[in-house]
């Protein structure tokens, strides 16, 4: 009974979302649509980052490394054959003559990240605390250097271009829903309980039969999959990018969204994305300078970054667990459930 009601509510919710996504461009201006698309992509990336960083407590700052791999892998696969021949003439023949569409190339990007995450995570997930963070930063640097030097595949430091710009709002929102549903189901199930147990105390976790390494690795790998997917979405949104699109600046943006929203909460990720996006869009307009009545505000280039940095520092000092901490915003009333604090 309540199961049927819940299913109905979910279906109606999805239908409304889909309608909104499809008709939004008719109502909203282009700028708003673009902001919404980027928010959806960033929400995919931040919630998948929360999985490892927040729920298993392994603070990775290498997430953008997987985003880059997803963007390049899907970009190479989805580049139309003529574009491939002219832009990437040195591609090995099996790749040069191979073309797949947006959806399969996105999934392929995610799967390559899965394989990479297994290889990278197996040694790294043994580490803890600051060591993991530094090591994952090392991973990000390595990915960047490899992208710059693998000219035949990536055009090196030059702009990789020609990717069909297919990431529309319905696509981005659709992937966000998939990401959130998968992550929420895992996080609030036995697997997620194991994640949190390992985060709280690795020794006690072992004493109740949980292996630390596989537990952390599963979160890392799953997070990497959605990082790859998000990378592909981003690549198909931008159409062209270069290795520096996926480096420290983007890392800082995602990490601040995560930390400001609350690491141990999926809805917190969304809150962080929305808050930081609105703020940066606001500040970006400010940066360009403007006229308020008779007063002329001169352009303040870089102000957005500085303000974001300061807010980030404030959160670290006064609310290190982020806006939501470990809590989820719940639409319990919508789904006919009481707010239960079961998970905390």
């Amino acid at each position: 009974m309540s199961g049927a009601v819940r299913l109905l509510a979910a279906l109606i919710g999805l239908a409304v979302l889909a309608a909104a996504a499809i008709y939004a461009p008719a109502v909203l201006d282009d700028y708003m649509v673009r902001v919404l698309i980027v928010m959806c992509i960033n929400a995919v990336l931040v919630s998948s980052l929360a999985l490892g960083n927040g729920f298993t407590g392994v603070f990775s700052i290498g997430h953008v490394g997987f985003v880059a791999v997803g963007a390049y892998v899907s970009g190479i696969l989805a580049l139309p054959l003529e574009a491939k021949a002219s832009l990437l003439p040195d591609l090995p023949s099996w790749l040069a003559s191979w073309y797949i569409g947006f959806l399969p190339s996105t999934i392929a990007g995610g799967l390559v990240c899965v394989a990479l995450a297994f290889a990278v995570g197996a040694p790294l997930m043994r580490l803890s605390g600051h060591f993991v963070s530094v090591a994952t930063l090392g991973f990000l640097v390595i990915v960047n250097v490899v992208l710059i030097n693998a000219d035949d595949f990536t055009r090196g430091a030059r702009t990789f271009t020609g990717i069909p710009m297919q990431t529309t709002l319905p696509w981005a929102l659709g992937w966000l829903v998939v990401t959130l549903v998968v992550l929420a189901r895992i996080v609030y199930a036995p697997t997620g309980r194991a994640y949190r147990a390992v985060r709280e105390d690795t020794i006690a976790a072992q004493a109740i039969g949980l292996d630390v390494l596989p537990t952390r690795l599963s979160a890392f790998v799953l997070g990497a999959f959605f990082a790859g997917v998000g990378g592909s979405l981003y690549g198909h949104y931008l159409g062209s990018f270069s290795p520096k699109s996926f480096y420290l600046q983007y890392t800082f943006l995602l990490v601040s969204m995560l930390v400001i929203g609350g690491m141990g909460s999926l809805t917190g990720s969304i809150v962080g994305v929305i808050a930081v996006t609105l703020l940066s869009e606001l500040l970006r307009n400010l940066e360009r300078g403007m006229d308020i009545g008779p007063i002329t505000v001169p352009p303040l280039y870089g102000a957005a970054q500085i303000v974001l940095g300061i807010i980030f520092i404030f959160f670290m000092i006064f609310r290190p667990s982020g806006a939501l901490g470990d809590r989820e915003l719940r639409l319990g009333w919508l789904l006919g459930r009481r707010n239960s604090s079961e998970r905390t």
Partner: protein
Amino acid sequence: MSGAVPLLATSGLTKIFGRLTALRGQSISLNAGEIVGVIGPNGSGKSTFFNLVTGFLRPNAGEVRLNGTPIQTLAPARIARLGIARTFQGTRLFAGLSVLENVRAAAQLRHPSSMLDAVLGTPRLRAVERAVNASAEELLGLVDLRRHAHRRAGDLPYGDQRRLELVRALATGPSLLMLDEPAAGMDASETRRLLELISEIRHRYKLGVIVVEHDMDLIMNLCDRIQVLAAGETVFEGSPAAVQAHPRVREVYLGHE
């Protein structure tokens, strides 16, 4: 008892830290349903013995057998899955999680489910969650913590934390339960309740129990047998009455009380 394989048997168990031999040639054996006490002054090797049996330390020499199978080379999580559960000296809860989640995390060991079950929301997952819940609720009832089920474990009073850690260990469905100073920090009445609790657990779940404890009242009233360690060596082993009567034991340990 004779001829049957004991639940746990150690032999020649030795652990050396640098120049210190924390445990030397220790042997102990117990059967299901038995409660054995391990006592000795501070630093005599009691916790080291626990860590060797549960895989958190590797012995330099000797063997640990569970139902006849050597386990001294296995990882802690594997040993827990084979049926040895423990608590830690000074408690190790999942402090940031709720009381209920602490017990559920342990109870799910006996109710496996996969990530795919979770993503697809299969009937199996729902059955697992129901079973995990039922067993967690039952165990919390055993220690009167059900009404605190949704509190943060780290916020409980110390005595409750110790009892929670005990039922969390129990939730893994062990055949051997090892308690490292369960009464530490408890007052006399709490200690009495603990005594009743452990006796009840032994009968209800037919477990073997090994208790390390400095509270002599608890040890003497609870245990079928007691092993006395001093500086890593086994000084004596026998019934509570024999231990109390033994002059050497009085000298190395009881004299300190």
